[in-house]
């Protein structure tokens, strides 16, 4: 079949629409000029300046810590939720629970952020914990919505998995807990790794929820960038954004490859 001219055209337009802003950002991060919109020649000057910016580095470090911890927590919570939803026979409220697990995927971030903020304030008043808002509250908030993403990934993998593998292990004398760690976990591990990477990038990217639940001394990287940009876009932000795009692209690619390889092997 002849391809025609319109498919390549639409593909170009579509990808252009999606990626032109990002490409221009990357290009301008190598701009010599201080003026963001005027090309002044190639330079890596802003990357150098970035390294000496204590506030940004501090925020990057906070963000990395939060992303690592909340991605790990999200994997644990999400996997357990997925296991319950796929392996337990029908129980009362299973459908409701299934819906609720995936709700954070479609819930507006503003609402999640606000509701968590209210919860933390109320909890502090009643239980005295968490005392004030800071890294802990951001980690809790991020684990919550990232767990939903992990649950969705883990659920589909658990559903694809041949259940007779678990039965075979039971049959050979392993108790239910043993079966989970010996068989289920290794078999779904690649899905969990890609779930972790996805949760990590989501946490790293998040601005809205973090703005609601964060407190002094726990400004994440997106928060710092956002406040910087409000005073005018400086070229070092472009450099920083380029680095972040690089990290995120790498994580998403690795996650995608892992998932793809696993589906292929399952067949």
């Amino acid at each position, binding site marked *: 079949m002849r391809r025609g001219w319109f498919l390549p055209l639409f593909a170009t337009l579509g990808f252009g629409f999606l990626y032109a802003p990002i490409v221009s950002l990357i290009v301008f991060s190598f701009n010599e000029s201080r003026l963001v919109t005027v090309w002044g020649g190639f330079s890596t000057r802003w990357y150098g300046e970035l390294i000496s910016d204590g506030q940004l580095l501090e925020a990057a470090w906070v963000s990395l810590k939060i992303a690592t911890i909340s991605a790990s927590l999200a994997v644990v919570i999400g996997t357990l939720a997925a296991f319950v939803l796929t392996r337990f026979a029908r129980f009362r409220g299973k459908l409701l629970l299934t819906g609720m697990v995936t709700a954070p995927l479609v819930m507006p971030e503003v609402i999640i952020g606000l509701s968590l903020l209210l919860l933390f304030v109320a909890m502090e008043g009643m239980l005295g914990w968490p005392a004030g808002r800071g890294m802990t509250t951001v980690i809790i908030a991020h684990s919550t919505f990232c767990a939903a993403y992990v649950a969705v990934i883990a659920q589909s993998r658990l559903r694809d998995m*041949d259940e*007779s*593998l678990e039965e075979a*292990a*039971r*049959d050979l004398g392993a108790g239910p807990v043993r079966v989970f760690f010996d*068989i289920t976990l290794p078999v779904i591990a690649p899905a969990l790794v890609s779930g972790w990477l996805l949760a990590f990038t989501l946490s790293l990217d998040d601005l809205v929820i973090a703005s609601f639940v964060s407190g002094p001394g726990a400004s994440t990287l997106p928060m710092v960038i956002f406040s910087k940009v409000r005073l005018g876009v400086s070229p070092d932000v472009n450099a920083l954004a380029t680095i972040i795009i690089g990290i995120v692209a790498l994580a998403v690619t690795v996650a995608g490859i892992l998932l793809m390889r696993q589906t292929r092997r399952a067949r």
Partner: protein
Amino acid sequence: MTSNPALAVNTRPWTDPNAQPFISIRNITKRFGDFTAVNDVSLDIYRSELFCLLGGSGCGKSTLLRMLSGFETPTSGKILIDGQDMAGVPADRRPTNMMFQSYALFPHMSVEKNVAYGLLREGKSKAEAAERAAEMLKLVKLDSFARRKPHQLSGGQRQRVALARALAKQPKVLLLDEPLGALDKKLREETQFELINIQETLGVTFIVVTHDQDEAMTLATRIGVMTDGVIAQIGEPREIYETPKSRFVADFIGSVNLFEGRVGPAAPDLMRVETEDLGSVSVPSAPGLTQGQTVWLAMRPERVWLTREPKPGAVNSVPGVVMDMGYVGHMSSYMVRLANGRQVRVTQANESRRDNPISWDESVHVSFEPGDFRVLTQ
């Protein structure tokens, strides 16, 4: 096989009324909601038997197997294995092991790790488990594949790993769910005999679930034919084939011609049955039949005589025309239409090359030995 230890004792314990069954299934029922998968099944299986549960899909054979392994809990009834009640015993504590239809080999473990898994779970040391695993792999002739992962094996090799893994713990009972179902025809026939050899070598009691009647006939010491959650008949392969108890069993195992008729006047040896298709035929008299009762006469296609001239001295003979014929090599099968339009299936062994075989549209005579009829009341 050099020796068969089972031969020294009675190899057909089910014929001995005093024999102690090894597995006793007592009035087992399993319901899933409104659906009754297994309905009040009772069954005795003896030590070192190779018992086949045979039936179509959804007949309850797999559910029965899963209740033996402990993956399903019976709604009511009792299962005893070697005198021990299995109620409340979870799958991981039962003296049974199962070979799954999908083989269920652990994809992240090597072949030897797969085989050793059960041994490690029962507390054997690593060295002990490895030694026993190697022994089992030797038994199934896969000792050179120990380090491979399951996805690097062919279907037949995977099947043997699954068998080795299930046998490694020396279970009292091995449950096999369609063990040869995923293999192609030729490999399946070879593997059947290998399976029998292994079973006889180890003396383990095998319970095989299958939908393939040839497989059941080849493998089994006894067959339990299942339909709609009940066992229609239990017996040795020959018994099931030669003396089916019902039309269902006669039809399910092999092919059969069934003729409906009414019992005529009683006679000492032979009795008459009035049929629409064959007229009045002589069959061996069976006890418990009353005159006028509806019965069905079952006749295997290979027992029918097919001749051009009336067979001299034949008691039951009717004319017909060959409608269809299929040459299969070692035999030919015919469809013969009788005067009333009824078609009779006949198979004839092709024993000679010189024959002038009966062919399409020929007028023939179909005759039946009285003793080859099986009189069925249900």
